């Protein structure tokens, strides 16, 4: 039972990029927490599977205030990072899932999944990827919009001056958090806010950012710039209803850390 796809185990990022090509008929297996059951049950039927385990993409490096995280880095490796990234990583799945699932898998997961999108959008992360047309770096926001056909290599961001995270939901091992808002203030003082759970992928809350000095108004503005939908964990109504509170919480935590 299961997949008999050709398995490719690249030994470097460039080998991975070349094996990936334009991404047609290829599936990428990093941790495997999403792909392995899909292969087993025939929900995914790729011709080739690239295993990233030995591709040199498991790293967290720091250079002059810039943090780079390889796509095959397990989520557990981020648990000690500063807010919002660390606490967000700590809230994903359980011990075993965090040790196996990877940053790249989380950022490239199907709609709904992808808790890490929130903090990394708030941190203004840049995504470096390979695929048709070669390697490119772009804001994570742009990458998320066009991630099909791309092989994520790493994400990097400048360490912020302050960060905050507020999420809904009991402690759980669900696929994703019902909704969470991440916030970060850069060293230049700019505040970025991002939400996951209010759309198919994480998104910046630009209208709320513009009102960062007025948390109540920012919360109301945030609810106006998303259109959350229903899923088994919560309704769109509930997400829209509670988003202002999460935005207020994040802004007030950012303020308190000033």
């Amino acid at each position, binding site marked *: 039972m299961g997949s008999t796809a050709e398995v490719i185990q690249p030994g470097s990022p460039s080998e991975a990029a070349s094996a990936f090509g334009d991404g047609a008929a290829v599936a990428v297996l990093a941790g495997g927490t999403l792909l392995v059951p899909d292969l087993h049950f025939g929900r995914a039927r790729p011709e080739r599977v690239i295993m990233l385990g030995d591709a040199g993409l498991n790293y967290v490096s720091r250079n002059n205030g810039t943090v780079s995280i390889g796509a095959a880095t397990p989520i557990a490796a981020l648990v000690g990072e500063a807010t919002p990234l660390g606490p967000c990583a700590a809230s994903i799945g359980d011990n075993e899932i965090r040790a196996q699932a990877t940053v790249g898998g989380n950022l490239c997961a199907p709609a709904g999944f992808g808790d890490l999108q929130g903090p990394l959008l708030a941190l203004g992360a840049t995504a470096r990827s390979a695929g048709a047309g070669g390697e490119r770096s772009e804001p994570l926001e742009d990458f998320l919009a066009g991630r099909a056909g791309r092989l994520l290599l790493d994400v990097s961001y400048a360490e912020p001056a302050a960060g905050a995270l507020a999420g*809904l*939901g*009991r*402690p*759980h*091992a*669900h*696929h994703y958090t019902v909704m969470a808002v991440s916030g970060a203030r850069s060293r230049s003082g700019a505040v970025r806010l991002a939400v996951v759970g209010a759309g198919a992928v994480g998104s910046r809350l630009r209208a709320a950012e513009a009102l960062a000095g007025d948390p109540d108004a920012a919360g109301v503005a945030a609810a106006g710039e998303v259109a959350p939908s*229903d*899923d*088994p*964990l*919560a*309704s769109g*109504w*509930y997400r829209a*209803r*509670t988003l202002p*509170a999460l935005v207020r*919480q994040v802004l007030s935590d950012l303020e308190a850390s000033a």
Partner: protein
Amino acid sequence: MAIHIGRGIASIEYPTGMNQNGDPSQAWIKVKPDGRIDVFSGTSDIGNGAKTIQTQIVADTIGVPYDWVTFDNSNTDSSPVCTGTFASRATFVAGKAVLKAAQRVRERILEVAGLEMEISPEDLEIADGDVLAKGAPTKKLSVGDVAAAATWGHGELITGTGAQLNPYAAISDPTTGEVDGVPHAAISYAACAAEVEVNDETGEVRVTKLTQAYDVGKAINPALVEGQIEGGAIMGLGLGVLEDSYPYYPSAEHRGDDFGSYYNPSSADLPELHNIIIENPSADGPYGAKGIGEMSNNAQPAAIATAVHDAVGVWVTELPITPERVLRALDARAAGSGPRREGKHVIFDEELSINAVGSGKTWTAGP
């Protein structure tokens, strides 16, 4: 954001055995030539501990050590009938069947021992695997020796069967619900106190403590009683605040199809638990036991609903008490909604009623 604390109680009853009865269980037992005991029962062990409980009953009823008894419920070729493991009947009803079978075995052991010891069986007793003369405990014969005598002297393995069946209580008058007999094997009782924390901005309810009192009749195995009470507590917590197969009921859309999309209770939901076990022996159960497995998730939802009301002043009467339902109730109250009062009538939840939704039936006590 504020967290509000609330408390609530509930008390419940629950019948043991299949409703209206008519649900047989049977056991048979044989004694090997060295006195070791084989029990054959048809009761499935679904985790409730039927194997353990029924083995304990047999050991004490015959008078042999627990580890002399082997329990076999493995198949229908060798096991007698048991209507099944449901309706809290595995201890009370099926346990009674093994008790009766063990009593037959004990009687036969004493008969054979009486012949061997030349003492009337009425003057004998069994304890810890030995048959003893009452009042003269130095006169004794091990159950193993009695079993050997039965086999090699009388040509038999000592055996016994027992059956338990409360007769079916039919509905004799369907207009009133009158029955022509007692429709349960026994009734068990419990009460629960819940403590919750409610977040008034997200609507999230966290159950922080459950105190639960059960009249178990007799705890044949206290550890297994606790297992039922504790497991039931978390299942009741799930019913109360987490689980829903149809999150948009009555719609059938967006059903959770795996553990990642269904709110099953996890160890992270574990509240403080306090079990209170009351032993008020039942007249009919084995060793006075009652059945409490099923009822153990019945009291928590109402205690939790009441605690939520105590915390934030709204009644959520659709389960589970999701964050969304709490917020909608808080919003409705802020908008001035509440029960309709007219004369001596106090009418809650009018918008949920069949009168508000259906068109084919009306139901009312006026006005």
